[in-house]
């Protein structure tokens, strides 16, 4: 393949990972923005989404599309319920103290990971994509399913944005983010808002995982990279800023795709992580304005 088409392929692959990444990172960003909680277990909610997608599709059998779309609904709901429960049982009792919640979510990470290993096993298992059309470009064929991931993620992002800015639930969330004490004084059930936001964040990660699992595979350790990348995206985008998160996800996803196609992925990850750590040291408010605190 010539350089041009090769670059186009890298860009397309990067766009797919950017789409999934922006959903995952948005979940992390929402939780941090509203609750000021750094959820280290976020990657495990992602992994749980993928593993449950496999379980649902496998249990249902029949046409791949039926299994996939069932998974798209069921897996996020189960993950959301688990997140809601862990918020109510653990995080709320810690009064959202930053250090304690980080330690608690690390504990959650190990528990979820180990349970996935015990019940799902160490194998990587694929889920059949719902459809297998290929789009023929002049230089190579490209999976239509991958492009539909981009489209569907974009729709979800717009929907989340509409919910946050145009509905009463979004207003309540933003009020809680802005000043939880005043919100409480105005009769907003802050505890329930927190539980809802935590569940919503986990569901976004699970949705992203269900979308990606037909083209990668479900594995019990798959949560690590999305967690790291989401951190990177959320930091670059400015903690708690939705627009910044999406811009940064596209930036990181596409450049990660391009760099790892032409260079070693380990080197790409090293450079990206180092750059972000330095960004956090020297520009803690993120590259896109919004203040962190």
């Amino acid at each position: 393949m010539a350089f041009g088409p090769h670059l186009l392929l890298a860009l397309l692959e990067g766009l797919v990972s950017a789409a999934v990444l922006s959903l995952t990172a948005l979940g992390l960003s929402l939780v941090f923005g509203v609750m000021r909680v750094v959820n280290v277990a976020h990657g495990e909610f992602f992994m749980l989404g993928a593993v449950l997608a496999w379980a649902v599709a496998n249990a249902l059998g029949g046409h791949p599309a039926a299994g996939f779309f069932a998974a798209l609904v069921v897996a996020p709901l189960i993950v959301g319920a688990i997140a809601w429960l862990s918020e109510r049982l653990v995080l709320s009792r810690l009064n959202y103290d930053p250090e304690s919640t980080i330690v608690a979510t690390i504990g959650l990470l190990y528990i979820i990971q180990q349970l996935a290993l015990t019940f799902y096993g160490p194998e990587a298992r694929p889920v059949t994509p719902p459809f297998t059309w290929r789009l023929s470009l002049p230089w190579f064929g490209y999976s239509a399913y991958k492009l539909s991931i981009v489209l569907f993620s974009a729709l979800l992002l717009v929907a989340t944005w509409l919910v946050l800015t145009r509905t009463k639930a979004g207003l309540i969330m933003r009020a809680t983010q802005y000043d939880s004490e005043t919100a409480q004084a105005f009769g907003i059930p802050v505890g329930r808002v927190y539980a809802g936001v935590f569940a919503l964040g986990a569901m976004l990660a699970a949705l992203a995982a269900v979308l990606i699992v037909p083209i990668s595979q479900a594995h019990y350790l798959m949560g690590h990279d999305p967690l790291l990348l989401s951190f990177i995206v959320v930091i670059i985008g400015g903690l708690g800023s939705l627009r910044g998160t999406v811009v940064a996800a596209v930036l990181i996803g596409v450049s990660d795709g391009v760099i790892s196609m032409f260079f070693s992925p380990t080197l790409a990850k090293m450079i990206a992580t180092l750059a972000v750590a330095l960004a956090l040291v020297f520009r803690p408010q993120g590259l896109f304005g919004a203040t962190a605190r």
Partner: protein
Amino acid sequence: MSGEHKPAKAYALHLAVLALLFALNFLLPAYHHGLLARIMVLAVFAMGYNLLFGYAGLLSLGHAMFFAAGMYGAGLSVLHFGFAVPLAFLAGIACGALLALVVGLLALRTSGVAFMIVTMMFAQVFALSLIYFAGFTGGDQGLVIPQPARLFGVGSATIDLTDPAVRYMAALALFAVALLVTLHLVRSRHGRVLVAIRENEERTRMLGYDTFANKLAVTVVSGAISAAAGAAFALLFGYVGANFAGVQYSILPLLWVLLGGAATTLGPLLGTLVIYVITDTASSFTSAWLLIVGIVLILLVLFFPKGVLGTLRARWLGWLP
């Protein structure tokens, strides 16, 4: 912090613990003897972590990089440059201290959540670079330090670190030095300033203390102690591997310190001992030891945030350092 100061009692307790560990060398069966040597080395790692987290209140999620820096600094200088054991040990400590200085200069510009994430990311970069330069570091498989490289002479005597009794005594010596250094440090003026920074950094600065310099100093000391543990681990057990730089080895010292009691001098040993014994016992009938780590972490922050010794000190033993 504590109302009453009884240094004599505190020193007596520490010496008693050391004497007990010394006596155990002659009493324990072979398997537990080896296990305890390993636990003492890891407890030194936990003590290094405790200085930063417990006393200065800086929660690092990347301490594995200092442990691994000591481990690789010692191991690689033996393997590639043919250093003798004592020199390699010092090289390991120097690597850890230098890394801690660089990381401290950068990461201490942030605080709170940002500090945790930045330290985690630096550790991630460190771990990835160990894998990237696999030709030099052995990558994922790690490197074995052969037995002849772990011998060294003192005067006319030859010390063989592969001999169990020698290994145990070396681990105990390291542990004793680290314990006494910690004890001295936290009772010193610098130690009190650190606690003041933990409790209220703004006020400490207003009182005229250079908080950044104090935090940087404790970061370097903490990194050096952690590196000493890593270097000892490499030389005593003859193996260096990239998994020791992974996230898990950043979380474990946090777990050990939280369980034993943050900001207590003997807490790290107690925490390491208890967790090691639990996971060692559990691993004989289940492979799910990470599940135990997770559950213990959550239970600790929920119900026991001061850890065992911290709770004892708060309730009954105010003199405990």
